[in-house]
């Protein structure tokens, strides 16, 4: 364990009074299939403060998606507790926004209607939702594409639609599972800048899973590193960068490079 973890733990203790946005305590996952039983996650504990941006990195198959799904209430851990916004997670949470690796759009709906699915399912007021959707479309630079079907969009554009959909109901917690994993390097950088701006503007708490170390360090206020299976937290690193981060400047900053180097060495150990 690093000293950062210790400091962070103390920090969270004092802030617990306000309540954590996300909190996992000693979460374990044991998958039993016909052939074998796999211990996927072991004693995983994590706290995300309200408004904080935390990135989760780790080797493939270490249980990142599993942890994220458990926060969304999509799967139940074998043991341990998960809490979101102060209430125990017992089933699918509706007070979150979830972004998947694939955009997961409805092929038969245009951009705006795909975003409005969120409103329809929740029974939000139509006019209000429509206005919000327009604002989000504008924000992510998809104006003019409102009626385009997913197959007429690039992967990056599809993923932006998926982001808008996850933000429409202004969730206090945003969960993202390798949202930009399928994008080329350039679109990915652009999306990183956009997501960071969205986060600064909305103040939502974000837990983002990624394979990209530089993405994790650019986006996160904290980077949580997981061990290979059974996945558990091996380091929780504070990123010593200002909240307002210019992309190019950040890439060249010595703090950025030191942090990525540290994460990389932890991952290759």
């Amino acid at each position: 364990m690093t000293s950062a973890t210790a400091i962070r733990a103390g920090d969270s203790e004092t802030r617990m009074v306000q309540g954590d946005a996300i909190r996992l305590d000693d979460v374990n996952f044991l998958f039993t299939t016909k052939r074998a039983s796999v211990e996927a996650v072991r004693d995983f504990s994590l706290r995300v403060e309200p408004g904080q941006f935390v990135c989760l990195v780790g080797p493939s198959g270490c249980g990142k998606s599993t942890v994220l799904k458990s926060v969304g209430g999509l799967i139940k851990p074998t043991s341990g507790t998960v809490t979101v916004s102060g209430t125990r997670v017992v089933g699918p949470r509706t007070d979150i926004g979830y972004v998947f690796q694939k955009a997961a759009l409805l092929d038969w709906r245009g951009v705006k209607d795909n975003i409005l699915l969120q409103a329809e399912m929740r029974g939000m007021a139509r006019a209000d939702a429509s206005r919000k959707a327009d604002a989000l479309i504008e924000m992510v630079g998809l104006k003019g594409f409102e009626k385009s079907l997913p197959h007429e969009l690039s992967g990056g554009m599809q993923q932006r639609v998926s982001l808008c959909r996850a933000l429409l109901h202004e969730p206090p917690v945003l969960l993202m599972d390798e949202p930009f994993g399928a994008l080329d390097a350039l679109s990915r950088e652009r999306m990183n800048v956009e997501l960071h701006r969205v986060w600064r503007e909305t103040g939502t708490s974000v837990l983002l899973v990624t394979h990209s170390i530089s993405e994790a360090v650019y986006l996160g206020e904290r980077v949580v590193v997981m061990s290979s299976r059974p996945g558990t937290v091996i380091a929780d690193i504070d990123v010593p960068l200002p909240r307002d981060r210019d992309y190019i400047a950040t890439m060249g900053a010595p703090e950025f490079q030191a942090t990525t180097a540290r994460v990389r060495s932890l991952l290759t150990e």
Partner: protein
Amino acid sequence: MSTQSSDTSTLTDDRTPAPARSQQVRKTKSLGDRTFDLIAASWRPAAVVVGLFIVWWVITTLGWVPAYLIPAPVDVWHTMTSSAGFLWANALVTIYETVAGFIIAAVGGIAIAMWIVYSPNAEKSLYPLLVFAQVIPKVAIAPLFVIWLGFGSAPKVLVAVLVAFFPVVVSTIAGLRSVDPDLLDLASTMGSSQWKTFRKIRFPASLPHVFSGLKVAATLAVIGAVVGEFVGANEGIGYVLLNANGNLNTPMLYAGLVILSAIGIVVFMVIEVAERVFIPWQPSRRVTATAAS
């Protein structure tokens, strides 16, 4: 054509203002282009049909095969025009039986598939029964239906239903199960009810599968209706065929076959059109559209 399809794919340039481009995408769907698509897609089968006709015509005019085995196209045409009223009346009967059988099979098949997908108990109890109903040779039990239901159209419709039912059930089940699990997870984070998830996500997502089942079912329904007529009928194209066969009236037999094929093709095409209307987003169609150009 090719310029348009490449335009659609170059939409990847994110920041370009849309209007000019979406105009081009719209243009892909213009009536002129669709007609062109249709011609491009149908000239090959048309050529094959014309070729077969020529072979048929050559064989019969050269007298290689006696006319009571294969009548000349002219004779068949003559029969069709001279007995047009008779054939049409009988065709209507077969069309009615086919369409009724198909609709019942489609509605019932989709309903049962939904039941099976949503209820594990239904799957365990119903599915084996369905498979059993499928493997029984319909020709063998058709006489039983005549005993039960008489000589009217009911037993024919029933055979058509039984024949057409299974592909609808199987393809609808496959469709409902093919839904991206992420979409179902997404729906539950939206607090969606089962019914809303079905209506807005699962059912539309299953439509491409459903339609491929419906197409198979439609052609099978024609066969089912004719099989029903073979077993016991005094009207319908199946009856016409059986009668013509008994009288060695080969031109009439051929005329019946032509009409039967026509019914099958029309029913199939109606469903193709419905498919294009209901699922304009279907990936397989986009691929064929580019391949045709």
